[in-house]
Structure formats: structure tokens, C-alpha cells
């Protein structure tokens, strides 16, 4: 509920807190530099639309759709991604 509220207000949320199967826009990446650089290279760039498609049975990693492909992102990595 909290996440929904904040999205309603247009504030930034982490990708781990968003609703599944809804589209968001990446605002910024906030994590270890080299790791984030790798995510950027994979196409997770600010401004791009992103969506958490589903979680795996153990809750981690998350399945994320971006640029027409699917990625498995650990929650740790998803927490670096701030979206709107």
C-alpha cells in the first residue's frame, strides 16, 4: 500500500517495492559503481521503461522486462534501481 501511495505522489521508489506487471520509468541507479555500469550496459538506463514481470518461487531473483528482453535480477540489484 505504501508503495502505491508513493507512486501516486510521483516520488521515486526502488524496483523491489513496485507493483508487478506495471510499467515504470527508471530514474537513476544507486549502487556500487562497476556493478551499476554493468546494469547500464545491459540497457537499464535512466528514462527507459521497466516492469517487474514476476518473482521466482523463492522470491529472489525478480524477473524484469526491459528493452524487449527479460532479465533475472537479484533483489539486491533491483534495490539499486530507482523508478517512477
Amino acid at each position, binding site marked *: 500500500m505504501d508503495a502505491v501511495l508513493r507512486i501516486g505522489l510521483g516520488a521515486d521508489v526502488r524496483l523491489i517495492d513496485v507493483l508487478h506487471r506495471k510499467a515504470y520509468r527508471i530514474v537513476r541507479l544507486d549502487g556500487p559503481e562497476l556493478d551499476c*555500469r554493468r546494469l547500464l550496459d545491459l*540497457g537499464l538506463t535512466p528514462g527507459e521503461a*521497466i516492469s517487474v514481470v514476476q518473482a521466482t518461487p523463492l522470491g529472489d531473483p525478480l524477473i524484469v522486462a526491459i528493452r*524487449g528482453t527479460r532479465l*533475472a535480477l537479484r533483489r539486491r*540489484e533491483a534495490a539499486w534501481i530507482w523508478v517512477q
Partner: protein
Amino acid sequence: MGAVDLLAPDPPVLAKTLTVCLVGMPNAGKTSLMNQLTGGHLHTANYPGVTVTYSRGKSASRWGPEMHLVDIPGVHSPFEPSPEEDLACQIIAGRHKAVQPDAFILVADATQLERHLKFAGHVARQGRPLVVALTMTDLFPRLRLSVDVPKLADALGVPMVVVDGRTGEGSAELLAQVKLAAERPVPMNVLRRLPEDPVEAYRAVDELLERSGALISARSEVLTADRITARIDRIVLHRYFGFPIFFVILAGLFAAIFWAARPFMEGIDAAFSAAGNLVIEALPGNVLARFVGEGLIGGVGAVAVFFPQIVILFFLMTMLEDSGYLARGAALVDRPLSALGLHGRSFVPMISGFACAIPAVFAARSIPSHRERLLTIWILPLMSCSARLPVYALLLAALLPAHAAWTAGFSLAGIYLLSLVAGALVAGMTSRLVLRKRFLSVLAMELPLYRRPQWKPIFRVSWLRSSSYLKRAGVPIVVVSAALWLLSNFGFGSHTPVEAAVSSATLVAQADLENSFAGRLGHTLEPVLKPMGVDWRVGVGLISAFAAREVFVSSMAIIFHVSGDEQDQQPGLLEQMRSATFANTSQHVFTPATIIGLIVFFFFSLQCFSTVAVVRKETNSSRFAVSQLLFYTGFGYVAAVMFVQGLRFLGVS
């Protein structure tokens, strides 16, 4: 100036065969294109100094100009690269000594243009001739997508050819374009001017695609338009169905390596035994003939016997990889495995390890990060491989009363489960204590679209990978087997091995084992064996088991003078083991405590020189392989001693 112009179209330089590298991101379809371009005539090679393999071959004559083609590993990102990515980046940047391509074929997935074109920019920036090969266009209808290729090629300023790795469509044109591009100076183009920074680069690519109008997409913002993939993912990653499906696939994989390979392995084993015996019988009493027959042919047989398992494993792995499931399976188990410092993809080598550590070590190649790959290889010797099975069967039969077969079955299942637990513990402890810097690599694993596997390329790739096993592991294994044969057949006492009717091609001669070097070694080791509660005879068995663990059983049969076929040996051997006592005493060698001690020893110790040889090759580090050998064998010994002494202390003799 005029002289320079005249020199430019230098005929001898142009006449030489071009070397062309296939580059691209993983899952772009490089391998099947490579297969198509070379007509399947490719072979694998290793870069000097690293364990990364690549395939190379000559282009098939039906596609026009002859070229040397090199398929280099796919690259996701040049940051924090895996060993494969690092090497590919070196070649792309022209910093590699052995591979200096004249031109690149950039293989790009047409369904993911943004990401693949961004990578194309990275390659183009190096200023070498470049032709883009667009793959996966057959998926366009499924994705409700289309690309106007001439428009896109115009906008980028590079030649672009649509290819199909299945049918060979576009191959001739691709090579013609490569030849053309290599003959001309590289023009400045949009692709080369793409910024280095990923954010800028993506923005430029997005803009370019939009402006040129080359990409016609019906996909709604982000949710993948491919309904088939979405639907399958919803099932195989389902909260309740996900794991049952995973376990069924795992069981299938295991069964195939374990049981489907067995008839082939027995056939190969029988063939090499027969060939060895043929040599021995041709020259009866000849020492050299016996060395060739038992030591060398036996050694080659020891290599070849793993071949069916390896072919089957690589075949199934390639199939799982190509269909798209492997990445999903890895995502399913990533959480527990990453908690131990392993990678989601570690599950394939670990399961293979229950059949044999050797193919498992090879399977670890699919793990992208170096550190997690090494940790996976580190714990593989703990997985209860099939060579331990006959040893456990013998020891459990000696330990447990014969009438209760189910207790032995239960104990065996327990041993298998415990080996997985031990592997988890060692992995967790190693990653926390030894690799104290507990940094985690980024998973960010691409889940490719589901596709129907293509049989022909899969067959070829698995064949290539398997034959590279023969090449890499073959020599060390043969050398070690031959050395062990010499050790167990020669000694100070008698310089000629006793002529014996060898019914089964065991490595150890029948009668003279006590006087052999191995026998001496067993005697020398007696003080060390004493705490384990066993005598030199078991020591000889343990030493010979380094050739392969199951040799322990046949060595015991020889040393306790039990003759006959392997099948009817067991009762006699058990009888002998029960009555065996230490020299000049009435103290039994095989008591419940010592048998449990032996089981514990076999559980932990890395008694397999073939594994050590393969690990050395794969990790390119003797230090790693030797410390693994010492760690597990030492740990096995200490644990065995602790069990034996502990049990004795508790009153179990």
C-alpha cells in the same frame, strides 16, 4: 604522396585469406551462424594461457570467398568481465597477440536492436572493417515486429545483411560484403561515432531508430510482446509448479548421465579390456606387452570410458541452454546457491558431479563469473560420483547384515544427501573464510526467448566440446594411469612382474602386489594408516584407487587373493575381509569402526588423479588443483581417524 597511393591497393596483401571474427552479445545466434558459414567444419582451440575455448574454421566454398572464421565468446558488458568476456574484449580492441582479425562480423539479434546496436558501436569504434549480420528475423511475426534493413543500414552507415543460421540464407551475401568492407578503408559512420558512455549510447541508438523509422514495433511499452515466452515463464517459474518442473528436468538430466551412458561405458570398457588382453596374449610373458596392454591401453580406456557421459551431458546442456530453460533453472535456484557464494548456474555442474566430477568440471564453464566458477569446481569432488558406488556397495555389504538389503539402500541414499550438504557447507565456509572479501557478482542474467532447439548445431557443438575433453584431459590421465601401473607392477624385490592370468583388465597385477612399489608404499604408510584402524593391504587399495575409485574393489580382491569374475568375487571377498586380521595378531582389520572410517575417507577424499588433471587444465592453476587434492584427502583422513577413534572410544570396536 603519389607513391603512397600506388602502394595502397597492394595485391599480395589483398590476396591473402582474410581472418574474420564473429562477435556479438550472448544469445545473438553466433554459434549457429558459425556452423552455417563453415559448413560444420570447425574445430575448437584454446587461447594460450587461458582456458577459454573458441571455435575456428574455413568458410565453406559454396558461400564464395574463402576466409578464416573465428567465433569468439559473447560479451554482455566490458565491465567486470568474465574470463570469456575479457578475452573477447581484448580481441575486439586489437590487444590480443594470437588473434588479429582483418574484419568483424557483428552478429546482432534483430529483435533486440537497441542493446545489440549499442554493442556494435563498441566494436565499430575500434576502426576495423565491420559488417552487421542480423539474426532472429524469423521471430518477427511472433513479436509483431519488423525492421526495414536498407533504411537501418543507411542510417548507420555500415553494411547489414539478414542471415538465418538454420537455412544459410544470407551467408553468401554476408561474406561478399565482408570481403568488400575489408578491401576498402573504413569510412567514418554513425556507428563509429556512438558515444562510449552507456546512457548516451542508448539515447543515441534510440534516437537513431526512431528518426530512421527502421524499427516498426507493435510492442506496448515494455512488457515483452512475445506471449509464448511470457506464458511459459508463468508456468516454469510458478510459485508452486516451478520447482516440481525443475526437479523433473533435473532427474531427467541425472538419469541420462547416470543410466543412459552406462551401456556405452560398459561397451567401451569391454572393448579396451579385450584390446589390452589381445596385446598381452599375443606376446605372453612379455613385460612390455603387459605395460602396453594394461598400463597404456587401460589408461586410454580410462579416458574413453567417460566419453559417453560427457557427450550426453554436453548435448543436454546445450539443448537446455538453446531452448532457454537453463537460464530459468538457474534463476530458480539462485537464491540458495548465491547465499553459499555460488551462482544459479552452478546447479548443472553440481548435479553432473553425482555422475562424474570430470564432465562436471567442464560444465562449470557456463558460470559467467570467475570467482563463482572456481568455487563450484572447488566443491565438485564432494559430490558422490558414480565411481564411489562400487566402493560403498562393498563396504556397506561388509558393514551391514546381508539379509537387510534396505538398510544398505537407506545408508547409500543418506551418503548421497550428505555429500550435497557437505558441498554446501564447504562452499559457504570457503566463501566466507577464504574469500573473505564477500563481494557478490551481479546476476543480471538474460532470459532468452524460448525457441525450439535446432538439433544439428546442438549435435555439432556438443561433439566439439566433448572432443576437446579428449584432447585436454586425455594425455594427463593416460600418463597417470601408466605411472600407477608401473608403481603397482614393479618393485625392488622382483624386477619382473609375475606372469598372471589377468581376467579383468585391472591396473594391478595379480600376485606380486605386496612386493611392488605400491605395496612398499602401503607398508611405509602403515604408521599413518594405523590411526584409521587398517593395515598396509587397505593402504595399497587406497593408493591404487587414485587411478579411479572403483579400482579399490578389484585391488582388494587381488590383495586378498580372491579370484573369479567381478560378479562372483564379492561373496568371497567379503568372507576374506571378515576373517582378515593384522599380521601376527588376532585383531580384525575390518570392524564396524574401521569400515565406517573407510566410508568417511572415501566420502571426502579426492581420490581421482583424472579429476586433479582436469581441474588443473580448466583452472590453469597447479596450485588450485594441488591444494584441492591435499585439502580433501587430508580432510578425509582426519575425519576418518576421528570417526574410528571416536567410535572406539564409544565402545564400538
